[in-house]
């Protein structure tokens, strides 16, 4: 079985983002970028399936600017076999919407015929949490979102999902889309020799036009602003003082 893993290049999760003064967006110039943390978990899960003999090839795909090939090289260094880069944006500030990404991925799926797609549950930049579900809808496949455990037996995947009240286990028919939650696994680090080897692994470059997908946004960004700042707080000296302050504020 071939496994397809979509990965996204996003601002590093440790960076405190800055909103541009003119309200046009978030400043991404000269900011550290990395692989979306949920996608690292997705790549790791695909590699583990291969190590268990349940997958024979892992193809990673990224959609966006040319620099996304760094993200693909990282996935290759972790253990993916082959990469596809779909260039769909000229500028790092242009975020391709989940619907367009899902349409491109659907075409990639058509071409590659994977038995399984593992995506991250959400990208930490747009916080949409939608691409996996949308891809699944477009393909008419089953979906297992927010996965914390995946067990593949024959043509069925038994997936435990993190839901509001606890955990839910479902069985989905393959081919399927699984989206990875934080607790699915602990992603491995790419070793230096593997990073070197990854440079020689195949990376195909395509464009959105190659797949005939229009990436025009459906949601026009009118403005981007800073969230309202909180009023400065105070440091209290003791529990008694804290209790007094909370009573004064009517909080307890």
């Amino acid at each position, binding site marked *: 079985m071939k496994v397809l893993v979509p990965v996204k290049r996003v601002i590093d999760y440790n960076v405190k983002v800055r909103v541009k003064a003119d309200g046009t967006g978030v400043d991404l110039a000269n900011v550290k970028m990395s692989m979306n943390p949920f996608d690292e978990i997705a790549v790791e899960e695909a590699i583990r399936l291969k190590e268990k003999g349940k997958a024979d090839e892992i193809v990673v795909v990224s959609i966006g600017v040319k620099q996304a090939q760094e993200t693909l090289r990282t996935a290759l260094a972790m253990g993916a076999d082959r990469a596809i880069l779909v260039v769909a944006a000229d500028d790092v500030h242009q975020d391709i919407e989940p619907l367009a990404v899902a349409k491109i991925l659907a075409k990639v799926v058509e071409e590659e015929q994977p038995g399984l797609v593992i995506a991250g549950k959400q990208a930490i930049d747009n916080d949409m949490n939608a691409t996996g579900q949308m891809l699944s809808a477009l393909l008419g496949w089953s*979906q297992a979102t927010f996965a914390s455990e995946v067990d593949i037996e024959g043509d069925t995947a038994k997936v435990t999902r993190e839901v509001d009240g606890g955990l839910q286990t479902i069985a989905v028919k393959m081919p399927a889309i699984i989206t990875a939650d934080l607790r699915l696994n602990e992603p491995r680090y790419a070793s230096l020799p593997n990073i070197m080897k990854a440079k020689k692994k195949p990376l195909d470059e395509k464009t959105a036009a190659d797949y005939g997908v229009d990436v025009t946004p459906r949601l026009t960004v009118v403005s981007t602003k800073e969230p309202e700042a909180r009023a400065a707080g105070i440091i209290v000296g003791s529990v008694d003082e804290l209790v007094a302050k909370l009573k004064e504020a009517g909080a307890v």
Partner: protein
Amino acid sequence: MAVLLLAEVNNGELALDATAKAVTAAKALGDVTVLAAGASAAAAGEAAAKIDGVSKVLVAEDPALGHRLAENTAALIVSLADGYEHIVAPATTDAKNVMPRVAALLDAMVISDVTAVVDGETFERPIYAGNAIQTVKSSDAKKVITFRTSTFDAAGEGGAAPVETIGGATDTGLASWVEDKVAESDRPELTSAGIVVSGGRGVGSEEDFKIIEALADKLGAAVGASRAAVDSGYAPNDWQVGQTGKVVAPELYIACGISGAIQHLAGMKDSKIIVAINKDEEAPIFQVADFGLVADLFQAVPELTEKLG
């Protein structure tokens, strides 16, 4: 203008708080029809009819809709979509699972976690873990939206909407439910609690988390946790507050032994009053706290429990 709102139904019961908050947000868009779908949904439909501002309730009961499997639920919603310009739901895990699927089937973008309605096609939503607020204008014929419930007040009771039972559910056969592992709790539900007491890595062990729970119980509060506390096994994952866990905005949020990473703040920085108890005075949590106490939580939390109430 008509709005179809997917009610949050768990095991035949309406999650009133989440649904009523979404009704408040949806009322601004037009006449609200609530869809209660499930293996059993009649009682939930009756409860939804009493929410102020609901003009009609549709009840879809079918074994295929049990446990709200995305494939079957999305197919039902799409079959009802004619005549509705907005299809909305509270941003729960159920809705996050099904609504993007609905949107793609309708060839529309989903607008996730909306925090404000500007007009029928313009909405605000947080991005980058809540560090920026984006205003977006949709050009889609149908707008598919999930509402971040913590930013809307729950609509009151007092409605008397007609309830109509509908059919039309089909089993796609793509997925089936196996089992639930539900965390039992007598405490208030985390996302609707008036007070939340949370513990982080600083609590140190599952055993010591009991001092957090004792304070919560004294205050009638829900218990939350940071990712570090969940990953270390001190607390179950459904207690996690943050970008990838639950987003809460209670009257009072007490963070104990939580440093205040960006991802945690994303889930609680809209709380009315934030209290931080941490022994590290440099911890970023103090930058958002209204009242900070630099102290060892093992002394301060029991003392606070004793002196409150």
